[in-house]
């Protein structure tokens, strides 16, 4: 398990916490210094959240906490008690299925290595939940806390715009869809 800083001394005592992740309740005994990222990956097997820097800059560890994109490397697990945590596994509709956002990322090829991708998809979900019709600038702003080294962002921005367009279309009566 990773820790946030090396300076902290190990504590022998574990702590019991309850987390709500993707709608399921989990009771866990963990060291209080365990970050939410490590907890999700190492204790719950949810490996879609990735470590890139573990100091809050790259955004690869992003999950949604009460619908808001949060860096799980900067949060200790006990701090997440009582909140609804959503990971990439939670927005995937079912085995073999893709959410409209995930499908749009595939359509535009909004990724290469895929390492930053789950976080980008979650950020897009959070953005579109708040703002179904984002401008290019708003999309750029929304993903600006997530570093992608592969794509130069163009096809990510296009994916989110495409997802927004399709979701809006899907919510319209068929005769009004383009």
């Amino acid at each position, binding site marked *: *398990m*990773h*820790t946030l800083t*090396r300076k902290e*001394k*190990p504590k*022998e005592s574990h702590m019991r916490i309850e987390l709500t992740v993707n709608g399921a309740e989990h009771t866990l005994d963990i*060291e209080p*210094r365990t970050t939410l990222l490590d907890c999700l*990956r190492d204790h719950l097997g*949810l*490996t*879609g*959240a*990735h*470590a*890139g*820097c*573990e*100091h809050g*800059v*790259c955004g*690869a560890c992003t999950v949604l906490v009460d619908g808001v994109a949060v860096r799980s490397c900067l949060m200790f697990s006990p701090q997440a008690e009582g909140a609804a945590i959503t*990971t*990439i*596994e939670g927005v*995937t509709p079912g085995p073999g299925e*893709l959410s409209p956002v*995930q*499908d749009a*990322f*595939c*359509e*535009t*090829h909004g*990724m*290469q*290595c*895929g*390492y930053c*991708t*789950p976080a980008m*998809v979650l950020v897009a979900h959070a953005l579109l939940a708040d703002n179904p019709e984002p401008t*290019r600038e708003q999309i*750029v*702003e929304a*993903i*600006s*806390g*997530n*570093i*992608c*080294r*592969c*794509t*130069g*962002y*163009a*096809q990510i*921005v296009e994916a989110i715009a495409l997802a927004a367009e399709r979701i809006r279309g899907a919510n319209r009566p068929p005769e009004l869809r383009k």
Partner: protein
Amino acid sequence: MSEARHRYVSSDRRVREDRRFVVGKGKFVADIDLPNTKHIALVTCPHAAARIKSIDKRAALNMPGVHYVVDGRELAEATLPLMTGLDTPNVPRRPLAVDVARYSGEWVAAVVANTRAQAEDAAEAIDVSYEPLPFVLDAEQAIAPGAVLVHQAHGSNVLLDKTFVWGDVDKDFKDSPRKLSLRVKWARSSTVPIETFGVVTTWDPWREILDVYASIQMPRYADQIGAALKIPSSSVRVHYDVDVGGSYGVKRGIKNTVLAGYLARRLGVPIRLIEDRLENMRGGDAHGPERLFDVEVAFDDNGVVRSMKMRALENLGAYAGRSPFQLGKPIGSIVGPYKIRSVQYRAIAVVTNKTTQDAVRGFGQGPTNLALERVIDEVANVLNLDPLEVRRRNLIRHEEFPYMIPSGTTYDSGDYHTVIDKVLADTNYAELKKERDRLRAEGKLAGIGIAACLEPSGGNATFEALLNPAITTSTFMDSCRIVVDGMGAITATMHTTSSGQGHETLVGTVIGEVLQIDPDTIRVARPDSLNSLPSGTPVGSRMAIMLGGAAFHAAQKLKAKLTAIAAHDLGIPPERAVYKDGNVFDRNAPQNKRTWADLVQIAHRNIHRMPDGCEPGLAVSHIYDVPTGGTLPTPDGRVQMYPCFAFEFHLILLSIDPDLGVPEIVRYRLGHDCGTQINPKIVRGMTMGGIAHGIGAALHEEFAYNDEGQLISQTFMDYLLPSSHEVPAIKIIDHETPSPHTVLGQKGSGESGYLGAPAAIANAVNDALKPLGVSINTLPLKVSKLGDLIAEARAKKGGK
């Protein structure tokens, strides 16, 4: 036009790898979870150079969960030094420092514990006693007489100093009416993937196999592990189905792997070493070139450049693996896209007390392109000619291909003037200049930047022989195997890892194209290294050409076999049998045919219906050597390097806030010609990503050191990767000049954008600064640097 030529190639198809990544189901090395795995944390040297007097492990070994501590001496006794490219036996490179540490952050010892947290805590408790030593950080100081020696036994800091002369440089300089010289510096930066390097190893002492799961992108990985650990390479099983979270050349954690492999064998448990960001940035040996160029050109009054002298001084850091070869690869396109007829090139590589380098996207080409493009702009500048016009006058013309450059490489194809014309048809150059002048009138500093660059692609190792005559490698191969099983399903295999390049899509598309079968029905698998055919791995912008070529030829073999089986079964001469969409029919009587299912039945179960001498089953493979490969350098240092040359033309408008020094890219156009694009989504993504990476190298990224030899940009707070705010909207204008050497006319695109963006930006910044009478040729062009330069120039000019 490609639609007419191809069924699947060049069409806008999805990338099959994407489905697993959007749901978080990539299999990255940190996701490998073997039972009973123990974790490594590293003890690192805090000094730029120091003698290790003692290492006291006792306190650490008594801490909870700690199993073992290994230091450099123990490891050195049990293993051999890592492979190097040059013959420099007195500059050995090892995973852990032995007696002397030579850069700040170098790994000195490794702790093994039950958890990474326990290992980190114990690493803090290891008491290393150091005697700080004098050090040298700057390459020019490192070659000065009396310099501090990084490796005493080597007797100097110079690992390589070689001068090549191709053509009559002296005469061309003498005959040219004009000359100019320029000093250009490419700063130490790298590709810095978001996933650090990681490796998990486990040793099975009864089978005598070391399993390796790693985020690796490196040729001869298993060979190098076996050699260092003194076990046969056939005892090393590298799992190529691990997804690599970005690499762009740099993921070459051989020292990490040898360390983890040693510990896995020593302790008999799975060992995991996932670098944290700090370990990666300081001691991960993943820095890129830091290169000082002195370039001199001889030209005429029309701006036609006849000859060039280039001296490249590379600061390698403390040790060298293959990194000095990054001075060699650019020789294969040393004159860029220009008709410069003679060249003198001096390549010097020195060691200093900085972090060790490894291969970075372009393998030295990006820095060289920067130097060349800056100097072409300066030629225009001194002649008061338009930089675009000067380029047009020097560019190789379409009808001159194939074109041999002075250093012996023949360029395959290109149509540079047309690419430029296409970009200018999209963006009117005169209007762009007006826009620049408008910005200037508004009080901004504004400039236009141009870069015309080549991306050598396809790979080839002949630069190794050029820099180290003891090396005679003239082979550079890749391979593909196709098996049609007894139910008729197709599985193709590739034999290396990928880090985002979409190789599974590449293989499926190419085989589907040849067999005229929907690529999505073709499974692409990655066997481990013990079950693989040779692969040169995704370096040198080569996979579209080389893996694509291997897949193409394997599919042709399969098609030929199916056709032969059908002809025999139909009782017709083979030339009458026609393959179409997986079935084979008689040209003279098309109703007589054998379907895919028939052919599978015959091949798998009816050997009595097979042609004589035809192997049963449907399994084919092809090992493909690089086109134009197979030659070694001539005594005067000429050789064919890479087979294919893609072209990129950058045209940008940039404005700088004169009070703050903040540059903003207002417009970005790229003309790009990489021949046939097998998957346009992938090519576009690579190119966009390459430009973003180039923007980083030009404006933001630097592994900077302070005077004490400490790396001061070691987190993402100080080493600034471009975010979505720093990358402007970019328009790419494609052109397609097929390569005559490749199976589908494809060239490489893995380095596209990156190879020219820094040059275009540096040219734009210098155009913007021109009214102030100053220029800058040292990357990165940071806001602080630009701000100071502008303020100084304005003060000199007499105020605002």
